[in-house]
């Protein structure tokens, strides 16, 4: 299924900014969350093209608003004795968690919007940021 969706995007020249695949409440159904960009008519065309795939059950265009979106990021920071406390303070401000500690590193978990994660990247870079792994955005519509 993923190859059909990804193939559709590449064949028709649509961008994939991020893509996240996971199981749903029904184990036979999987959910793909994608972030793409385009004018309204492009997005309309993307939705229609996705519906044309035989296995697609439902397509929801979350649009720019009216949904809650989050992303999970895992950071690895090289820690020096004089920067450990500063890293911890920043993580706390960002409501992140330190999930692994070694004598010279922290692994940090943070969720949030893209700006928040970008902000944290900028703050941690001078303090020894080694690596970031991001899930890409997932979203849920507001209300029922």
């Amino acid at each position, binding site marked *: 299924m993923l190859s*059909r969706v990804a193939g559709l995007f590449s*064949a028709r020249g649509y961008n994939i900014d991020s893509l996240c695949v996971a199981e749903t409440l029904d184990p036979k159904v999987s959910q793909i969350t994608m972030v793409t960009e385009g004018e309204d008519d492009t997005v*309309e*065309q993307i939705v*229609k093209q996705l*519906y044309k795939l*035989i*296995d*697609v*059950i439902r397509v929801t265009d979350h649009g720019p608003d009216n949904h809650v979106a989050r992303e999970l990021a895992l950071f690895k920071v090289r820690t020096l004795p004089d920067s450990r406390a500063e890293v911890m303070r920043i993580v706390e401000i960002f409501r992140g968690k330190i999930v692994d500690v070694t004598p010279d590193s922290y692994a940090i978990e943070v969720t949030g919007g893209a700006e928040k994660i970008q902000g944290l990247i900028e703050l941690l870079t001078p303090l020894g940021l080694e690596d970031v792994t991001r899930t890409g955005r997932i979203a849920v519509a507001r209300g029922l």
Partner: protein
Amino acid sequence: MKLIGADILVRSLQEEGVDIVFGHPGGAVLEVYDAIHRCGIRHVLVRHEQGGVHMADGYARATGRTGVAVVTSGPGVTNAITGLATAYMDSIPLVCFTGQVPTPMIGNDAFQEADNMGLTRPVTKHNYLVKDVRDLAATIKEAFHIASTGRPGPVVVDLPKDVSKAVADYHYPETVDLEHYQPRYDAHWGQVKRAMALILKAERPVVYFGGGVITSNASKELLAFCERLKVPVTYTLMGIGGIPGNHQYSLGMLGMHGTYRSNKAVDECDLLIAIGARFDDRVTGKVDDFSPRSKKIHVDIDPTSIRKSVYVDVPIVGDVKNCLEKFLELMQDEPKLKDYETRVAPWWEKINAWDREHSIGYAQKEDGPILPQYVIDKMYEMTAGRAVVSTDVGQHQMWAAQYYHAQRPNDWVTSGGLGTMGFGLPAAIGAQFGRPKDTVVLVTSEGSFSMCCQELAVAVEHDLPIKILMLRNNTLGMVRQWQQFFYDKRYSHVDMSSGPDWVKFADAFGAVGLRASHPDEVESVLEKGFATRKPVIMDFVCRTEENCFPMVPGGAASRDMLHGEPSRG
């Protein structure tokens, strides 16, 4: 009843009413061929898998039924790709069974292994890998359903060798369980009424229709619609035969090599009624300048066709026939239609004036070289437009579209979207198998014909009396034309004068070869060729520099047509 996968396949085909299969055996489908041998389903041995898929395609176009092809794994599948892509672009219903290496070997770079699912996904409506023989019958049922419903298209069923040998209980399902695949046939009444309101207000309406009319079997309804409104009608390459080409309301084809009056009418109309067409770039030319003053109605069963490249005011998703029936119902007691004819009369005058200004034509000189248009014209006279005509791709295809006025739907077999050279001969073979009593003509030229000419052996083997009009001009004509106009006559690799000798070629295959080198031989060769009960190649030695006019240069607005003088051959 317990059966092996291969027998389930053949039984399922019989269950689907398949009367002919085009295929080529190989290692991965040995079990399937053994079952074909056992069950006696009619099978045609093709000489190349591309030809096989084109045959199934030609069969489907000429009959309206779903074509079936069988190919082996690896090269069998890669050879089939062009055929699948051709059918996909033109929305032709096909089911292609592909052999696959045994499931434990998949992904191991096994002998004759290819990623069939990955390769065929972009050129099919849907594809299946059957990993469990218990799923096979239901998968085949789904494949036929998907191929032939909604906007039709090719479907691949990939069958690993071990699955074709494995045993399962055979039961062919009566229905499919595809909850999320529900093509919309029923046109929305509200939209139809909105469209009708635009029609009633229009002063310069034009109908522009495409292959959807053929697929939907809606020729009768379309004709009734146009005759009721007395509205000018133009059509795409895929729409040919949807109404009789020489009907009094027909403007001929539109687009790159369409008639001047068609393109002018579309350019200046105030209402464009698009029916089962997709605003292809060969139709629109420069999109921003396409029919700039018109409101647009668009009827199509595929929602993605609507507003893909051109904005439309009233989209109607649904089956063309269903939608036209609704229009006809609305028209029945519409008082405002009374003076419609008077209202559109000035519009017709304008269109007729355009036709006098530039109509398509040629001037065959008695002692000059043969003009290809002349040959097609004579063939049209002989057949009265009631033959099945298959074409290849290039100049001859456009001339056939311009001068052969097909009278009926499903009589015109051409590769429109993909423009596949080599399509014509195998497609003509498939058409002749599907319509054994009808005259099947192939209009081709040596460039295209060379690409699938081995299939002549199939026509000979089965005694198919296909009339092949080889409009030989010793060049790749359409490329030569573009090089002449847009590359300052730098003719790069278009020379085809080295042969072969097509009369000898026909002879070597056991077909009949005839040649006309002079205009006064054209009619006698055609008469002789049409009287032959064998495949016959009629080799017409045509003028090399002949150009296909009118022409909208690529990327230009469709009103900016090149006309050229009618050539003096």
